[in-house]
């Protein structure tokens, strides 16, 4: 039976019995979970900058080589606290190809995103793209994004920000464990925020860590986050709850102990995908290039619809029907209503739109086996071979 006939979207049985989701989802095994929470229940210390949160902050400080690592309940709130600490108001340059939350974090500090297009080759912001915006607009700060285990032009942006006397801060949600020219992510810009959401390689269930070398910014963020663990008291315009609980810290500490294993596993599966998909025309595996080390936590494909003979969104639907719950990257950014309605003005953003229209994210998670990867590669190969037939059959269904 040909692949086109057996596809689930055309009535066949799904390739995977249970949904296979994107996001890393590394988590302790049950016995380990039980043990760590038994300890918490015995200690009866549940939150308020408890011993595990303090240990996590100490370990992250060491690991990232950064002076201050401030753990928070999620990355979004970390970005908001960062924006408030920097006092950003007015225009902030941010990439149009980004998660909606990155851009929306600005709304909470009375700033407005001035959307910048991304580089066609990398999908990320560069100093060359930002520079004209700094000449044409009054800009308070640059908020850059390091997506997908890769890094944008951090040194170029840093130099540009310094020349203009404005802060650069970074949303490095996917960046734990990555390094740029040997320097760990977490050390760049005035503030760098890394996500500890379970979708990322270092998961706390949910969480974030705000990194900075500045004592002043750290004091501001700690004093805003909570009265516990605030260190030196400084005046802040308003406080906002950003505490991480002991439950979150316990999971993150476990995952931190296992990071090397996760990274190697990701790299191995990533390598399998890369090799297996190399000969499938119309699908390009996006390989992290701006980094000296990557966590390989995101498997991103760029779809060439002409060559593949299928629309990206049809491929996405086909995969989802197979219980392979692929994502579409930052789609529909910059067209997301929560971005479009709020950005300073609509601009020509062809490369951002290019990426949003072409991205497919494949699952790369704890449950995924090498056999699963092989099956996904075979599926994609079959889809590519039969692109025309599948397209016609899907069209008939519509």
């Amino acid at each position, binding site marked *: 039976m040909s692949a086109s006939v057996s596809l689930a979207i055309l009535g066949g049985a799904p390739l995977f019995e249970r949904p296979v989701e994107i996001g890393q989802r590394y988590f302790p095994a049950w016995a380990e979970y039980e043990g760590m929470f038994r300890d918490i229940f015995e200690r009866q210390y*549940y939150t308020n900058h408890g011993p595990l949160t303090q240990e996590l902050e100490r370990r992250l400080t060491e690991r990232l080589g950064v002076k201050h690592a401030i753990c928070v309940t999620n990355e979004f709130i970390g970005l908001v606290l960062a924006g408030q600490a920097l006092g950003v108001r007015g225009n902030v340059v941010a990439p149009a190809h980004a998660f909606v*939350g990155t851009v929306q974090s600005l709304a909470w500090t009375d700033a407005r995103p001035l959307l910048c297009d991304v580089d066609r080759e990398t999908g990320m912001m560069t100093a060359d793209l930002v520079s004209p915006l700094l000449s044409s607009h009054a800009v308070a700060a640059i908020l850059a994004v390091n997506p997908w285990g890769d890094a944008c032009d951090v040194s170029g942006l840093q130099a540009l920000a310094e020349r203009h006397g404005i802060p650069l801060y970074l949303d490095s949600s996917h960046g734990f464990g990555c390094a740029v020219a040997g320097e760990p992510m977490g050390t760049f810009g005035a503030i760098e925020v890394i996500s500890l959401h379970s979708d990322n390689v270092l998961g706390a*269930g*949910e969480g974030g860590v705000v990194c900075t070398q500045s004592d002043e910014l750290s004091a501001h963020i700690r004093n805003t986050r909570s009265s516990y663990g605030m260190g030196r008291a400084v005046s802040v315009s*308003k406080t906002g709850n950003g*505490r991480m609980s002991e439950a979150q810290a316990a999971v993150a500490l476990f995952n931190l102990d296992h990071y090397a294993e996760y990274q190697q596993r990701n790299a191995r599966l990533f390598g399998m995908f890369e090799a297996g998909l190399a000969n499938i025309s119309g699908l390009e595996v996006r390989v992290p290039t701006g980094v000296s080390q990557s966590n390989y936590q995101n498997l991103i494909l760029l779809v060439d619809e002409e060559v593949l003979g299928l629309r990206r969104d049809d491929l996405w639907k086909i995969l989802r029907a197979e219980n392979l719950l692929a994502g579409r990257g930052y789609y529909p950014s910059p067209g997301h209503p929560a971005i479009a309605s709020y950005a300073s003005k609509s601009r020509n953003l062809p490369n951002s739109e290019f990426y949003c229209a072409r991205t497919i994210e494949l699952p790369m998670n704890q449950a995924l086996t090498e056999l699963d990867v092989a099956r996904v590669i075979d599926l994609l190969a079959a889809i590519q071979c039969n692109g025309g037939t599948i397209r016609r059959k899907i069209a008939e269904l519509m």
Partner: protein
Amino acid sequence: MDVKTKAEDFALFGGKPLFDSIRSTSNLVRPDFNKFLTYSRIFFEEGQYSGEGPVERLLDSRLAEFHQAKHCVSFCSGFWGLVLGMESLALKGRTEVVMPSLTYRRLADAVAWARLTPHFCEVDPVGLCITAATARPCINDKTALILGVHPIVNCCDSEGLEALSAEFGIPLLIDAVESVYETLNGRRVGSFGRAEFFSLHASKFLNGFEGGYVTTNDQSLAEQLRALRNNGSGSDAAGHMPVMNGKQVEIHAAMALAALDDVRNQVELNRQRYYRYKTELASVPGLRLLEFDESEQSGYKNIVVELLDEWPISRELTLSLLHKDNMLCRAYYHPPLHKKSTGYATISGDLSRTDALALRFLTLPCGFFVSEKDVAQVCSFLRAISSHGAALAERAARVS
């Protein structure tokens, strides 16, 4: 026998502390571990750790049922639930939130995050809370929202505030953090006003590690809050308002469910502590226990006393003595919010009653870590202060 017989026995003046570990005013209830594991197993099997997962959905439905409200939406904290609630409910084009000043120290900050301006009102001298009568003079053509707040013992008159809200067409949102178990005229707190919000912080009535929730009978508000807390995704319900990640974590939801299963037991223990305080404090002159209204259902969690005029020493010295003997008691909402310096504008008129009340009350140790025997010791300690007040005041004056 009194625990302290002379000034030198108090830890502030060199004596041995009454307790060898802290007795605080935080609840810190430890739910049943196996129940926590049972609820944890649900998200563990699904491999979903955050973001509208199965345990959070279960928690939301259980809490809605518990509060006899149609909907419940949980958040990473009560604070951000409140911010999003205000953002949703505030009348567009208006800027002020009428709220008490004698309340939680961060409450005005939440108003500022919602880009609104706190307009502080007086409180009722008996209930220590906002009422329709104290809120009414602050209502004007800029009022966007009335923020009712239950005090930490008993409830504010939500029905009176509802009538005020209806009269002016201004939405009412209620801070019910301290009234999870309470009823008002027999009706469970949770469905008054347009919405009520609660905390699941470990120090509160239900320990969910961290977290909070909003209850409402308004389905469109519930949908809007779900969209706002989840980066606007899933619907157009967020409108054009700023969105955020304010989602609950599954582990926290599992903890909160285990705590919810244990509520009756905790209330009984709280009641026993409260009754012990009531009995013991009857023989301490100069202190008045704020009594729970026994015609309603109560959680009996917080213990608040008023220092009457005959109390021999200042509240400040009383608190210093308690702290040094390892009783982490707190001045009741001091300083009031209108006295704090903030990075945002606030509005307040004459709040002399709030100023006076803010000097008179303090909270006493309560919660899971405090036994009935501890309560007796705390009261004995207070009795000793009452007996040796002059010596303590003189000794303190010498030290300073």
